[in-house]
């Protein structure tokens, strides 16, 4: 991926500037989306001719203009007419290390790290996420670690990381799979050591803090060291800790979420026990490998939702007979009633979140479960439970205006609203236009004719040149086209690499 040229990066940055300009008239505005079919993330019957009232970036009301509890459009509202379109909540990507300069830090234990310092807002990844209708992205370190740093939930637009951030310090990453170079036995021993060290450190600190407090009060320390440690514990505050331990302390204190990567089924019990032993199970999200589904009962018992691996099919070959069995992983979790979030895959189709959900539907999972696995569940898992992933009063107005049903192949994202502001408009997406030149379904109605006309013109011109100068002329023509193309070379959906 180091092949990304400066030109591409600049182009990305420029386009982001464009998007920002687009989003400029912001702030306290009342916006109304009118006339759309509203598709809800829990799969309940879509609302036809629905109206969404947005105030200060939040959804104020969802309903109809007529009937019971009609919505009144305020006189000063900016009305966006989306008749014939479908409105769907912005999708949420629960776990990714794309957008970072590189996915993994080689320091094995780095709870003091923060992806804040690594996120590159100009990455094409963010632009293509927005184009594909993802409005919240949980960026967190990769799985090749012991204890990694803090993640961050960002919007896929903005010039600075601060501007993008919607939730800082979202979670800390822990991996129970062997970090590169370790086997899982060493990994487990190392993890235990990390928490043992924390305990030792906290005890020492407690004793010290107690002694200090007593000294300040000009009292002698009379209690036993054990008692002092116990009493001192309550005196510790975050600022007393060093960088190495602060975030871990917040984790075991129940003030920070954990994302625990469980590569294989054999690690599941250890992962749950680790979280339980240090008191952060209730705030833990398990990020699973493709084979981990075999331990579905462990997660069922732990009552924690999970993030599934991006490959949804698991295949295993019987070594004796040579026969292969295939398991559709989400179905296993759906059947066990464990809630799950989906991740995009690496294929041209599966890297769309909606496509992953559509595959779930094709394999017999209910539409509601499939839709919530790309919206409300991941939103909850990255701490946006009351903010994103649903079209409901009080939630952020992160909405997609689609040309059709979200799981339909030909559906395109036409507009994206984030907190009530239009931040993406397909008709102004120059990069997409370069790559499709208006033949695409979504654009057909708008400017199909124009594109056709252009095409015919081009042909004529080509023909003329070919007549006049023969092969040479054609070559020159080609070169020109090349030059023009060069701007659009950056593949919008490039996989930025790494896990």
């Amino acid at each position, binding site marked *: 991926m180091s092949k990304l040229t400066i030109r591409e990066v600049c182009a990305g940055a420029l386009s982001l500037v464009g998007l920002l300009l687009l989003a400029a008239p912001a702030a306290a505005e009342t916006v109304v989306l009118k006339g759309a079919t509203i598709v809800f993330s829990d799969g309940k019957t879509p609302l036809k001719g629905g109206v969404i009232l947005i105030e200060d970036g939040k959804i104020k009301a969802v309903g109809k203009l007529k009937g019971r509890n009609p919505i009144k459009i305020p006189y000063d509202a900016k009305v966006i007419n989306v008749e014939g379109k479908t409105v769907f909540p912005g999708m949420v990507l629960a776990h990714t290390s794309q957008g970072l300069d590189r996915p993994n830090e080689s320091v094995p234990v780095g709870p003091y790290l923060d992806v804040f310092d690594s996120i590159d807002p100009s990455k094409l990844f963010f632009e293509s996420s927005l184009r594909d209708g993802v409005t919240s992205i949980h960026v967190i370190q990769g799985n090749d670690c012991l204890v990694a740093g803090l993640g961050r939930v960002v919007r896929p637009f903005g010039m600075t990381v601060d501007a993008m951030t919607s939730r800082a310090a979202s979670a800390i990453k822990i991996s129970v799979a062997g970090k590169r170079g370790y086997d899982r036995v060493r990994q487990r021993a190392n993890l235990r050591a990390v928490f043992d060290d924390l305990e030792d450190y906290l005890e020492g600190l407690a004793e010290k803090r107690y002694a200090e407090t007593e000294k300040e009060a000009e009292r002698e320390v009379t209690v036993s060291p054990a008692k002092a440690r116990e009493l001192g514990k309550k005196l510790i505050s975050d600022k007393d800790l060093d960088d190495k331990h602060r975030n871990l302390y917040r984790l075991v204190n129940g003030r920070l979420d954990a994302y625990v990567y469980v590569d294989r089924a054999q690690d599941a019990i250890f992962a749950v026990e680790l979280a339980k032993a240090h008191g952060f199970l209730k705030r833990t999200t398990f990020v699973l490998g493709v084979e981990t589904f075999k331990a579905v009962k462990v997660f069922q018992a732990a009552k924690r939702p999970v993030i599934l691996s991006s490959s949804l099919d698991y295949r295993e070959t019987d*070594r*004796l*007979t*040579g*026969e292969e069995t295939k398991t559709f992983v989400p179905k296993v979790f759906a059947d066990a009633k464990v809630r799950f979030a989906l991740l995009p895959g690496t294929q041209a189709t599966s890297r769309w979140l909606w496509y992953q959900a559509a595959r779930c539907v094709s394999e017999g999972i209910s539409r509601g479960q499939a839709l919530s696995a790309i919206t409300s569940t991941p939103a909850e898992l990255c701490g946006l439970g009351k903010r994103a992933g649903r079209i409901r009063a009080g939630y952020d107005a992160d909405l997609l205006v689609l040309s059709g049903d979200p799981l339909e192949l030909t559906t395109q994202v036409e507009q994206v609203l984030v907190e009530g502001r239009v931040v993406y408009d397909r008709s102004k997406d120059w990069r997409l236009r370069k790559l499709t030149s208006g033949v695409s379904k979504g654009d057909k109605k708008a400017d199909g004719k124009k594109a056709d006309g252009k095409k015919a013109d081009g042909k004529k011109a080509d023909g003329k040149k070919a007549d006049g100068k023969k092969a040479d002329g054609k070559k020159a023509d080609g070169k020109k086209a090349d030059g023009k193309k060069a701007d659009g070379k950056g593949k919008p959906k490039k996989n930025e690499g790494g896990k």
Partner: protein
Amino acid sequence: MSRLTLICALALALSSPAAAQDLAISAGQLVVDAEKGSVKGGVLLIRGGKVVSAGANVKLPAGTKLLKRPGAWIVPGFVDARAHLGLERDIDERSQAFANDIDLADRVVPGHKDFAKHRAAGITTALISPGDQSLLAGAAVPVKTTGALLGTQRVAKLSLTSSASMNGRPPTSQGGRLALLRATLKKAHATKGGGPLEAFARGDVPGLVSVSNFTSLEALQRLAPRFGLRLIYDLQASVSPRTVKGVDLKGVFLAIGPGRVEFGQAARQVPAVLNKAGAKVLFTSRAPYGPASGMRLRAIQAAKDGLSGAAALAGLTSIPAQALGLEGRVGALTPGADGDFVVFSGPPLDLRSRVLEVYVAGRRVYRADGEE
């Protein structure tokens, strides 16, 4: 010619001087043809080195002394369809893809210690074969383990494994090897006379072909009817029931080595799987690269893991004889066949049974220690 005389002289030296004498022997069980079962208390009558009759009701000529081996089993001498015995280890000529002028009889060392080891394992006939380093490695030569040649009979030795092109000469791929073989066979098929290649291409002699996968086996099977090829495959592939699913193996001779080749978890069932798919499975020793007795041990193991006893014993006797075009002569004790047989202390596929005596052409060539 001198070579031939030498070997024949050696063969004579090994046997006792008495010539056209009758030999009659009876045993607890007599196996005439492995596929037809055994006869209780059967008698075998041999005259002039050939079987006269064998079975339950054999009339002995007056004055014939009957050797009695009560409790023992008499089975046809084993036929080993791939061995490298009697050679001084230089089994491969590597310079050409088609070593059509190589006759392995030139390399056989008379009186080599390998022959005795083979005899002790109950093997009476063996194909001395070159290795896998050329597409055509020359003519393999079937011999009695006394060292006597079986006339001018030869078998072409071919190889489609990757080692056939590991000597710095193209083709380097399986497709390339097959294309070259196809073109060469086409030419050779129309030629009269010539070496083992031409004889093989015309279908006059069988070819022992080393294959490392079923793809090349199938490719040759498609080719075989066009030229009337007679093929024995020396299988060096891993096999599971899945691997052979849908492969037409009906009547195909498949040679299985002593165990070096297939060590997968399912390997023990390989002979049974192949047999079920219609193949005629035969066992080879590959001696001296494996023990001569490995051939029988592999058959015993196969019989334990699903191959019928009859098929396992046939894979040591009658099937390799058919494959090499020696049926009617070796591999079964039918009238007119060579009097090559083995006396076992018990059932031949019982691991506890020992080889007590070995006879070639009616003459005892091996006797276990301590036996009379």
